[in-house]
């Protein structure tokens, strides 16, 4: 048996019990000072009456304080709940399913506690109010597949029920009202008791109810009563959330400025002013903005920050707390790199730099990035100098019209690519296809994507242009929608390649109008090789003088250097499964995933068509998941679902419509037990008794006061 209050805030009124004491102290302080000759008689009189008088005064004080406490108590509308009240009803046994909404929206806080915590407390009271012969079970609205398949049964043991309540955890899963009702109704159907009821504690947001109707259920038990208890009221709650975070200006070069854009949405019917949005990199706050949001308005909040030092980083965008904290943080991860070291090997240095084969390449790679930080550090060398270079100092090596390499040089180059380096060939008049095939299209140093054919010479007045641009390719992503920029270049001579569509793993990125491949690439080991069938300078083409040349070279070198890794890392949204993309050679390897709450999961890469993927669903909490393979590490930014961010409530009439032909009693959390009949919580009102006591106390006080 327990005591509850419908208006517990009035209990603070009991503090007013201090008023008589305060009034006494004030009057004592403000007591008149009266000069009087007959004080001796007062002293004699006081000695006689003091004890009796003080006792009476104390009694009076106690009565007045008690009266105030009783008034506050009665205003708080006390109700007696629990087994004794229930026992008084002498009702036959009843089977009850407590269905507790554990969806993410129940994490909303109206005060100190979340709605789920309050629902558990309420359910605990309801469990306590069960009669001895009643049986019950506590079911979460959202259950894991494993829990749903486990045997569940009704129990009369209150300890078991309280344990079931304690085990309830919030879930990120999508709300599935029909399944939950089906489970509950099935349990009630199996019960042999005559009286059955379903008590559903929820905030009753619209999510999950849109498509629900009772007719969808295959089992609806007879004699079932529905008691719904709503937490948080029927009005739409205020909620602001971050829906997305994007980072632009790829690749992320350390210390270079990057733009982070957070999408913030007000999912409330009221406008909000000065909502604070904080940007964190790691645990460091690096940006803050205040935004005004109209009703249901979505805004993008831009931040410009300096990219952190080369490496993997995580961060978050955070909103100042509202009632629903689950969507106030959005995690992201990114990788930054140092500028790419590029070795430009000049196969035809010429007599001046302008005449050299790499002049235009050098010009294209030397300009600083648009953000004032260099993306590339190109180093030009004559072809003879390649032997002296330590190749591991570079990410990309560009061979421009290089006639030949020694066998040792070729071997070093091959090793460089296999270990992850990028190699970019440019053709030229020194490139002899036969010799090249002999050097680079052989089993021990198979560097060329395709075997080279004979050069094709076009008439000066009939140059050929680029016909096909594979802009979906990472190296040419810049030209998506802007393919014409590349197609303006004219080609007078180029090397043909054999069997472009027959060699697996070789991709044609650019093809000329006559279908001849101009640019092909293939992966080799952990590195990449690209072959450009024309010259890097103006000898065979005017492309170096075209606008497209610089972004093309940047794209090719960036691709060869794996600069795409220097980008926003993959993200996932709970509870949707994510697929981690690997490379072909990752097939069968293991990825160790460490969750933000310290748990470890192992998943494996496997081939799925052309892709190598590792599917993952075992999320625990939103945050940064650390991925580790034998060769690399990465971050996976996992954010909670935003599907539960809309706190629009389903109204009682609509709910009733969806539950026809069953009828339900909907009670609000604050007024639970106040319903005239059919309340889920049997209660006995005590206010009238308290008021009666108050009247008696006041009468006694009046008598005492008049006697004094």
């Amino acid at each position, binding site marked *: 048996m327990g005591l509850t209050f419908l208006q517990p805030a009035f209990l603070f009124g009991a503090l007013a019990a201090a008023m008589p004491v305060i009034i006494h102290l004030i*009057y*004592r302080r403000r*007591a*008149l*000072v*009266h*000069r*009087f*000759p*007959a*004080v*001796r*008689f*007062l*002293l*004699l*009189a*006081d000695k*006689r*009456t003091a004890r009796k*008088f003080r006792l009476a*005064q104390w009694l009076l004080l106690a009565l007045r304080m008690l009266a105030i406490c009783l008034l506050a108590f009665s205003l708080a509308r006390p109700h007696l709940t629990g087994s004794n009240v229930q026992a008084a009803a002498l009702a036959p046994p009843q089977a009850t399913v407590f269905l507790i909404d554990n969806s993410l929206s129940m994490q909303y806080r109206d005060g100190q506690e979340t709605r789920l915590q309050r629902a558990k407390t309420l359910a605990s009271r309801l469990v306590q109010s069960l009669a001895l012969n009643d049986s019950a079970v506590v079911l979460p609205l959202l259950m894991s597949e494993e829990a749903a398949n486990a045997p569940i049964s009704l129990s009369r043991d209150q300890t078991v029920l309280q344990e079931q309540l304690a085990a309830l955890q919030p879930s990120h899963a999508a709300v599935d009202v029909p399944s939950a009702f089906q489970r509950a109704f099935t349990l009630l159907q199996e019960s042999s008791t005559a009286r059955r009821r379903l008590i559903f504690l929820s905030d009753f947001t619209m999510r999950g109810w849109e498509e629900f109707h009772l007719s969808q259920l295959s089992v609806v038990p007879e004699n079932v009563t529905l008691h719904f208890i709503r937490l948080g009221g029927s009005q739409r709650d205020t909620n602001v959330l971050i829906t997305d975070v994007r980072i632009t200006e790829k690749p992320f070069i350390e210390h270079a400025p990057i733009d982070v854009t957070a999408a913030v949405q007000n999912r409330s019917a009221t406008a909000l002013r000065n909502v604070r949005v904080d940007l964190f990199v790691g645990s460091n706050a690096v940006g803050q903005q205040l935004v005004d949001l109209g009703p249901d308005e979505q805004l993008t909040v831009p931040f410009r920050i300096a990219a952190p030092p080369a490496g993997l980083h995580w961060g978050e965008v955070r909103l100042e707390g509202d009632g629903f904290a689950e969507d106030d943080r959005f995690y992201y991860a990114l990788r930054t790199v140092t500028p790419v070291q590029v070795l430009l090997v000049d196969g035809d240095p010429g007599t001046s730099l302008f005449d050299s084969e790499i002049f235009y390449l050098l010009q294209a790679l030397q300009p600083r990035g648009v953000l004032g930080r260099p993306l590339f550090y190109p180093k030009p060398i004559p072809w003879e100098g390649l032997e002296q270079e330590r190749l591991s100092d570079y990410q990309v090596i560009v061979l421009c019209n290089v006639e030949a390499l020694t066998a040792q040089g070729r071997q070093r180059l091959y090793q460089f690519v296999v270990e992850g380096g990028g190699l970019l060939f440019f053709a030229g008049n020194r490139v002899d296809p036969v010799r090249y095939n002999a050097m680079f299209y052989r089993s021990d140093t198979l560097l060329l994507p395709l075997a080279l054919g004979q050069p094709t010479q076009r008439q000066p007045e009939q140059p050929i242009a680029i016909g096909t641009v594979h802009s979906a390719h990472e190296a040419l992503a810049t030209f998506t929608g802007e393919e014409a920029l590349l197609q303006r270049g004219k080609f007078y001579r180029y090397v043909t390649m054999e069997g472009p569509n027959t060699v697996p793993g070789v991709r044609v990125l650019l093809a000329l109008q006559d279908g001849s491949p101009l640019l092909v690439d293939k992966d080799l080991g952990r590195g990449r090789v690209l072959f450009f069938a024309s010259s890097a300078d103006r000898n065979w083409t005017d492309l170096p003088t075209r606008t497209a040349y610089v972004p093309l070279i940047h794209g090719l070198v960036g691709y060869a250097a794996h600069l795409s890794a220097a980008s926003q890392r993959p993200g996932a949204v709970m509870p949707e499964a994510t697929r981690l993309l690997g490379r072909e050679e990752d097939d069968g390897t293991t990825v160790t995933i460490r969750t933000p709450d310290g748990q470890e999961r192992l998943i494996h890469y496997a081939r799925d068509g052309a892709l190598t993927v590792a599917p993952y669903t075992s999320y625990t909490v939103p945050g940064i998941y650390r991925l580790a393979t034998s060769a690399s590490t990465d971050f996976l930014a996992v954010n909670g679902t935003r599907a539960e961010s809309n706190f629009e409530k389903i109204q009682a009439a609509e709910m009733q419509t969806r539950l026809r032909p069953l009828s339900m009693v909907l009670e609000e959390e604050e007024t639970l037990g106040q319903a005239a009949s059919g309340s889920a919580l049997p209660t006995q009102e005590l206010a009238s008794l308290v008021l009666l006591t108050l009247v008696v106390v006041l009468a006694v006080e009046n008598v005492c006061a008049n006697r*004094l």
Partner: protein
Amino acid sequence: MPTDTVRRGYFDPLVLAKIANMSLRARHVVEGLLSGLHDSPYRGYSVEFAEHREYVPGDEIRRIDWKAYGKFDRYFIKEYEEETNLRAYLLVDASASMDYGSEGMSKFDYSCYLAASLAYLMLHQGDDVGLVTFNAQVQRYIPPRGGMRHMHALASHLEATRPQGETHLDQVLRELAGKLARRGMIVIISDLFDDPEVIMRALRYFRHRRNEVIVFHVLDKNELEFPFQRLTVFEDIEDTAVRVLSDPRAIRAAYLQQMEAFLAEYRRACRRETIDYSLFPTTTPLDVALTRYLARRQ
């Protein structure tokens, strides 16, 4: 004959308080009283020359001193001092407790009017009147004398006296015992806030010497009725260190009981010693006090 209403107003202490001069106040009281009583039973007889004063129309022709007219060629009236048949001592309490008053007049003021009125009446009837003001000891002693000119001295002293200090009436009475060699009437005007037993012992001494003793016990209405309502700190008017915080409503009954016992003890003791004892709240008209004196003189 004046109506009772007129007389009340005429002798109302508060009305008298508006009259600035003490002698004038006394004259108002006494003449008003005497006119009501018709002839004074204590008319003295003149035998002894007192002074000359210039004739004014209305004086009796037979009282003109023709010898003086012969010498100065101006009319003088010959005045005689009436022979005294009583020697009265007015003992007025001038302790701090007498400075208390709730109705616009302190007990001391009331006592002064009373003393002055008595003095005027006595002098008017040819008695000698002396005055003693005291607190813990005798402050001032004015020996008894007759004649209306003495009234001025008495009134001036009363006007100049300010109540202060504690009361030790027994000590004062002992001190006076040596000075009052000739028997007479002793009128004590005081709130008697002292040990009744000790005071009565001293008064008894005077009675043994065949003095007439009249006690005018002057108390304020607040002292008699204790009408206070609010929580109050009562501070002893003679000793500010003594303070009592009390709720008057709670203590009133006990206080009034104590006060009644105090008054009853004086009444009983005075009756036993044939001392004329009268309680005078400061609201009592002064003619009542004079009537009581006259009744005693009879």
